[in-house]
């Protein structure tokens, strides 16, 4: 697991860590079943407060990215996790709602939005 913290970005430390772990899980760098460092190990490595890492892991668990097995540690839940699917579904709905708002302001109708969506999907397939 790779974490790089910036003290000057203005983004709270716990958010930076959360986002970096999330993206590594989603990109597959962190695989299902991978064991994460303990709260205290992570705090010590990054030289931050244990309460901060606690908050990160608690929120990641709530959002379905990781699971905490008592006495064993925290493990990555793969993309197959139900909680994760639910979370990502909600995120997609949120983003779609934002997209529709923006489209309305730009004066686009719904079929134009569909077109844009298809184009984008093709591009993503190419990646």
């Amino acid at each position: 697991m790779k974490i790089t913290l910036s003290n000057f970005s203005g983004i709270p430390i716990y958010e930076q860590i959360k986002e970096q772990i999330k993206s590594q899980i989603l990109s597959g760098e962190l695989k299902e079943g991978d064991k994460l460092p303990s709260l205290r190990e992570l705090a010590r490595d990054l030289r931050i407060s244990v309460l901060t890492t606690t908050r990160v892991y608690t929120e990641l668990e709530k959002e379905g990215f990781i699971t905490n097995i008592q006495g064993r540690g925290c493990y990555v839940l793969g993309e197959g996790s139900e909680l994760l699917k639910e979370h990502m579904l909600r995120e997609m709905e949120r983003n779609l709602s934002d997209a529709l708002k923006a489209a309305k302001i730009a004066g686009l109708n719904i079929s134009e939005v569909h077109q844009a969506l298809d184009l984008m999907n093709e591009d993503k397939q190419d990646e």
Partner: protein
Amino acid sequence: MSDAINVKNISKIYPGFELKDISFNLPKGYIMGFIGPNGAGKTTTIKLILNMIQRAGGTIEVFGLDNIAYDAEIKEHTGVVFDNHYFLDEWTLNDINRVMALFFSNWQSSIYREKLEQYQLNPAKKVKELSKGMRLKLMLAVAFSHDAKLLILDEPTSGLDPVARDELLETLAKFIQDGERSVLFSTHITSDLEKIADYITFINNGRLIFTGIKDEFIDSFRLVKGGKEDLTPDVKAHLIGYREYDSGFEGIMYTEYATLFPNLLAEKSSIDNIIVFTYKGTNGL
């Protein structure tokens, strides 16, 4: 027992200085930074916790035990580091081993010798021959040799170079790894705490200003800046402390007040600035 230290409404009166109604608690397994300007009462508070001076009121519990009734039991498992060593100048590090073995029933000479080796301290050397950084390591070696569950440090890093300070932080982070041991760390070098402290207790002029989670502490204040014309009486009334200069002013305000003045630039403050401006504010500077 969930709190390493629990202090309620303690007071102490000296001619010219009064420590009043200080309360805070340090949950087991965490690091608390104890901050405030010089003379704020940090050392007094620590001495009260250690039962080295008598309190005028309130209660103090360490490991869930009253600190006067269970003085000996508590000290068996408490390691203390002061800003200067508390030994005889003429003693060798070996002498210290002999002395501590007399006083601590759980003293482990083997661990002490190991620690001396780890810190590269020569056991035959006299205390007066040690540099400041080595004295700090000596006190840590002593603290670790009698199974300390609580480490109390009073300004241990004043006079140390950044490398030594960094090593200390590393040591403290390792110390609390198992979740059973706790640290109370008083300092006026707050950049040390900005990183590893879990909790902060901030006192100024003998009064408690804040105690709680460090992230929340930093988040309750904003550093606000503006031009000279922005420094209205209303703004001044909401500022905890500020400084004026030719092109404007900057100061500290509680976050909820900062939102009342959207014309001012507000950003997250360093702990140092919070302390400095609070001090300026209370002293009419």
